[in-house]
């Protein structure tokens, strides 16, 4: 992840605009290409989740294998806030963010001084603990049945109110969240804070020697990432009109890693977005032909890790570099512009 000052100082860049245009117009053309509105909702929610997750995996180099748990915690928090406290969209979303963030903050206390594979193993353990508690503590979570009948609450601005009961309405709420989040995360990852995260990924010991509190940085980025997962979870609870246990399982926590890696989260800000889109489109397109589409997707993933672990974004950067070299431009200029 190279950076140059012109790109990183900007709040809005070409790729951000492109993504906003593409996602913003999606409800208009998604059915024309043979897909459906709800797919757009799913994609955006998982994009939000994946962008937050990539703060850990791609930027800080922390392989969390239990992140699905925080998506689930956000979804349960959203549902419980709605049922038990106050059925207001903003309040419930805030509850999802805060509760997932708090769980993340406590979890990070145990994780943030670890690194590498030990970090991965401990994150699996925590993910499993939350999964088991959610599946057995039926008084709160309804266990395997899930929290049912979570409502899609109206978007209330005081003077005006929009209903999001149809998928297009919910889609635009998710889109608004995405639009804010993508700009904030772009700035964050290119701020001094983001640079230290990248430095920790490269050499944690050296960052500590320079005098930065590495553990504090890791703790804070883990908490932030969990809070974003909670936000995605709150939206997911509305999309599914329920909060279910399955996203908290080890399998789903692994699949988010798989999505981010296939897209190229290691080398690009946009990796998670590409990966999520590819995963869901593959699920629907391959899934239409074969029951065992995950077999083929998994094979693709294995081959990618073997030959091109930088993912789609890495392949794109290679191509861009090659084109640039042919035109006789500086070989690195293009890849930097991709961020």
């Amino acid at each position: 992840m190279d950076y140059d000052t012109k790109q990183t100082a900007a709040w809005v860049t070409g790729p951000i605009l492109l993504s906003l245009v593409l996602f913003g117009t999606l409800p208009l053309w998604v059915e024309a290409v043979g897909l459906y509105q709800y797919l757009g909702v799913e994609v955006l929610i998982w994009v939000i989740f994946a962008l937050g997750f990539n703060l850990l995996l791609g930027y800080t180099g922390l392989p969390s294998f239990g992140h699905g748990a925080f998506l689930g915690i956000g979804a349960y928090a959203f549902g419980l806030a709605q049922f038990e406290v106050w059925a207001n969209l903003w309040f419930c979303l805030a509850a999802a963010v805060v509760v997932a963030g708090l769980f993340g903050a406590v979890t990070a206390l145990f994780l943030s001084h670890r690194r590498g594979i030990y970090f991965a193993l401990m994150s699996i353990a925590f993910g499993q603990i939350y999964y088991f508690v959610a599946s057995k503590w039926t008084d709160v979570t309804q266990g395997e049945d899930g929290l049912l009948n979570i409502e899609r609450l109206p978007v209330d601005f005081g003077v005006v109110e929009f209903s999001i009961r149809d998928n297009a309405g919910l889609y635009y709420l998710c889109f608004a969240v995405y639009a804010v989040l993508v700009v904030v995360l772009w700035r964050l990852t290119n701020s001094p804070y983001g640079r230290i995260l990248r430095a920790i990924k490269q050499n944690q010991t050296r960052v500590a020697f320079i005098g930065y509190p590495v553990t504090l940085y890791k703790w804070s980025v883990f908490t932030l990432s969990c809070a974003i997962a909670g936000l995605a979870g709150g939206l997911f609870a509305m999309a599914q009109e329920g909060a279910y246990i399955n996203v908290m399982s080890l399998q789903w926590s692994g699949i988010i890693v798989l999505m981010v890696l296939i897209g190229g989260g290691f080398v690009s800000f946009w990796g998670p977005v590409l990966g999520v889109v590819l995963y869901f489109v593959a699920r629907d397109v391959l899934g239409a032909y074969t029951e065992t589409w995950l077999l083929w997707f998994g094979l693709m993933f294995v081959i990618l890790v073997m030959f091109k672990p930088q993912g789609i974004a890495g392949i794109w950067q290679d191509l861009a570099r090659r084109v640039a070299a042919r035109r006789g431009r500086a070989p690195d200029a293009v890849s930097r512009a991709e961020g």
Partner: protein
Amino acid sequence: MLLDLIPHLINGLALGLLFALLALGFMLIIGVMEVINLAHGSLFAIGAYVALAVMAPDGGLPYAFMEPYYALPAVARYLIALAVGPLVAGVVGMGLELCLRRTYGADPLYGLLLTFGAALVLEEAIRLVWGSSEYYLPIPSGISGGFIAGDLIYSTYRIYAAVFAAGMIGVLWLFLNKTPYGAVIKAGAHDSEMVRALGYNLTRLRLLVFGFGAALAGVAGIIMAPIWGIRPVVGVDAVIPAFVIIVLGGVGSFWGAVSAGIMVGLVVALTAAFLTDWSLLSMYLLLLAVVTFRARGLAGKSSVLEA
């Protein structure tokens, strides 16, 4: 009251020794390849499914073709299963190692991710061949059933499983510590580049050790099959205790893994006896309690995995 606990303790011991056997294969692979093999549970499942195909007429092999074979006594088929299951798991493991070669020397995360993908693929492949339904591995009548001693009922199979696993662990210890092959494997786990520098064929060593670790997973899968049942997700159920045991016992310690395995087995079995729903959670709480105070587990040494 205390006597009532004995069957649970035996169950826990059987479970723990099987977990330990699984975890030791997992650890051999970590040692020599520096890879966390998330597909280890899938190899465990493959052992179980292959044993099922060898043992039971509805286990996946074409029945008409195999009819004379199924006329063999159950004991003979069981012994064949015990040989063929680990063999197939070992061969699949070697195939996995061939794929893994490209990740050596890179970030160990890539190995973890590759084996996660492989676990996904193997699980789906199992679904493709055997479907999603649950099977039970038939066992010869000599080791099935139970008996009564005192006022308590003991399951014969659990005792057989504990003895079998303990025997395997003993043989493995002898192999690693008393034979020249074991010495090379241990040296490879300590410093694989140095082993290469001394003139050993490291490429072949890695292939064989991965195959051997996979075969151990296959054996554990067969012995566990009558206790847990056989279903596609059994791989995930198995790989998690294996990694818990490795973290708990400490990477690189043989007896650390064995004692951690027994601890986990006993804790799981005792919680299962009193609080059925929470039995697997207790395993993680044990892990957290130990690792919070001893970062490298009970007997772990500093290792490459922390980089």
